[in-house]
């Protein structure tokens, strides 16, 4: 946990004028991480704004991790795992899907909208998809602007 | 003055005592803080050791006031703060507040025999008394130490146990709980309270008892059986603490604040405090 806080910590407060989005991606070990790895070994270029955090399975990703990421300064969070039916642990991604379906709507209701929280399936073979995904999310977040600095989810000690 | 502001200490040495149990040797970074501490420190008092970002934790000061170059504490890694403390490396800094609480009335023990009874990780508070007594050996009568732990590995201060065992003016009884012995173990295999029953009857003696609640509970009747009066049996209480200075209310037991009126209590005082579920 300590590592996550460190990686996502605000170094300088972004402004709308000079905005370099910070995207935190919680990915599963078996599909999306391998997909991201493939994107790298295939020399695919994608936005350098993403910090990838590998977990065993999307089923492990607790909403509190996402809140911590927002707390620490993430402008957007991506959760990505295996396609339905491909989960290394049979059903972790199905559990995750249901969880994020509810949590995303609750978060939106509380003022953290759709362009802050993303969910996707990226398999180990989909290096291109991963690169495209990161590029498009970065573009969207760039358009949306920094995660509102007065948003209550952001840590201010 | 901000009473919640600790002093900065540097970690001089960290010794592994038992699994997850370490002894820290610390020095004050500020000379004034050091003299202030040693002008007030009496044996039995405690301090709050902390790491900024993790918080503070309460342990006794395990070194005696007769040694003023450093202070020592011994603690087990168990929660957030103790983890952060043990993650500190020699040369790095930690915070310290203290000394807090009351002390053992050692001056009133002059000329008396002293029996120390300790269990497991509770040797540190007793250790500061033991060294204080040994550093002023001529002022006291016989010294007996009964120390037990669950297993041989759980005994702390092994190096000092050897020193005490070698001294002709100290009777040391070491024991481990049944099942905790190793093939090389030469000490006793028994529970501490059971060993106490075999000791000679008390005359002109005081006892200092420190250990897990169950050990204290069973040791008190054994000591009474040896002839100790409840006023001559001393123990140190532990409660969760935050402020250490009688404000935060956490260590409240009956009308007492353990941080101010304790941690040292006689068995006689304990009898007047609420028993059972505090």
């Amino acid at each position, binding site marked *: *946990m*300590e590592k996550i*806080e460190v990686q996502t910590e605000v170094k300088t407060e972004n402004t709308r004028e000079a905005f370099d989005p910070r995207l935190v991606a919680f990915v599963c070990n078996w599909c999306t991480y391998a997909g991201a790895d493939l994107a790298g070994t295939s020399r695919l270029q994608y936005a350098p704004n993403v910090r990838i955090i590998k977990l065993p399975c999307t089923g492990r990703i607790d*909403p*509190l991790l996402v*809140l*911590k990421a927002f*707390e620490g300064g993430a402008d957007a969070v991506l959760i990505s795992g295996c396609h*339905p*039916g491909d989960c290394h642990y049979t*059903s972790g991604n*199905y*559990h995750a*899907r*249901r*969880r*994020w*379906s*509810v*949590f*995303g*709507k*609750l*978060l*939106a*209701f*509380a*003022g*953290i*909208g759709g362009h802050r929280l*993303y*969910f*996707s*399936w990226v398999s180990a073979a989909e290096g291109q998809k991963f690169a495209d*995904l990161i590029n498009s999310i970065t573009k969207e977040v760039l358009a949306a602007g920094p995660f*509102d600095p*007065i*948003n*209550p*989810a*952001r*840590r*201010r*000690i | 003055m901000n009473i919640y502001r600790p002093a900065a200490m540097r970690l001089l040495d960290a010794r592994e005592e038992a699994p997850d149990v370490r002894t820290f040797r610390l020095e004050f970074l500020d000379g004034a803080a050091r003299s202030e501490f040693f002008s007030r420190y009496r044996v039995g008092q405690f301090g709050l050791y902390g790491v900024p970002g993790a918080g503070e934790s309460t342990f006794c000061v395990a070194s005696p006031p007769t040694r003023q170059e450093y202070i020592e504490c011994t603690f087990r890694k168990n*929660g*957030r703060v103790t*983890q952060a403390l043990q993650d500190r490396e020699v040369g790095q800094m930690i915070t310290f507040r203290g000394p807090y609480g009351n002390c053992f009335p050692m001056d009133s023990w002059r000329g008396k025999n002293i029996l120390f009874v300790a269990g497991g990780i509770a040797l540190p508070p007793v250790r500061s008394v033991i060294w204080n007594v040994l550093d002023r050996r001529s002022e006291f009568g016989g010294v007996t130490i009964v120390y037990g732990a669950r297993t041989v590995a759980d005994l702390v201060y092994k190096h000092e146990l050897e020193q005490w065992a070698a001294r002709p003016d100290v009777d040391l009884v070491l024991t481990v709980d049944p099942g905790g012995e190793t093939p090389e173990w030469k000490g006793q295999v028994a529970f501490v309270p059971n060993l106490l029953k075999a000791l000679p009857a008390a005359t002109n003696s005081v006892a200092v008892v420190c250990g897990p609640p169950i050990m204290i509970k069973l040791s008190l009747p054994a000591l009474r059986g040896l002839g100790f009066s409840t006023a001559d049996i001393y123990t140190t209480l532990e409660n969760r603490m935050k402020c250490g200075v009688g404000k935060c209310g956490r260590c409240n037991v009956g009308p007492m604040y353990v941080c101010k009126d304790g941690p040292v209590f006689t068995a006689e005082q304990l009898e007047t405090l609420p028993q059972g579920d505090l």
Partner: protein
Amino acid sequence: MSIVDAIRADAAGLLQTGRAKLVLGYRSRRGQRVPILLTDAAGADQLVYDAECRQNLAAYLRKPEVRQHFPVGVVAAPPVMRSLVMLSAESQIAADAVTVLAVSENEYHGALDLAATVQLLREKYANLAPNEELLRKVREVAAMSEEERAAFWTEQFSKCTRCYACRAACPGCYCQWCVAKRNVPQWISTADLAHGTFAWNITRAFHHAGRCTLCGACEAACPQGLPLMLLNACVAECVEKEFGHKTGYDLAEKPLIGSWRPDDDDGFVR
């Protein structure tokens, strides 16, 4: 026989026959309705019931001091009945640990076991009238711009003192180790800082997905007047719409977040 008389008679009966060692009901105190824990049939005439009885008595079933008196009788309106069914479905209480004194504003249904309670809920209370006022407010917040919503909740959460009255009042909050108690790491900051109160209130609402029966006890208990039911209603609406899940109508119900179906909504996945 009036509703209240019937409840009193049944409560006394349960205690006398030993079908219950404790009855959880409501009494009147200084104009308020507050819980009463009866162990003696002689006290049954203190019981009252009306629409002002807002505490969800199922919350007491996690208390060790109450659990030692199982089996118990519980005076329960439909949302409380649903909470009891939920607790049984989530293995927090044995099916025979409670007898339900099933009541609604204008009818008393007798002392029922949980199976009969489910039957009753399905037959008579399958479609509880939605709270129009609450739904209107949910729409109002949902219609705000994102900035307005963030500002709205920032202001609301700023009142939170983290007394956890909402948690105490809720039967769904049965975790012995609430995440708000955990400090390695400190998941939820305990200081009066926006991110801590945000994390607490959002996490509380989320953890009740599929557990909340919209009984309103949390909001009624909040000393600072936070509109907690808005969050609960948002979640409840989502779970019903997306997963067809209605809490507390099935003793074999699987916890919503702990289960899944292959055809769950996929629309939000990239």
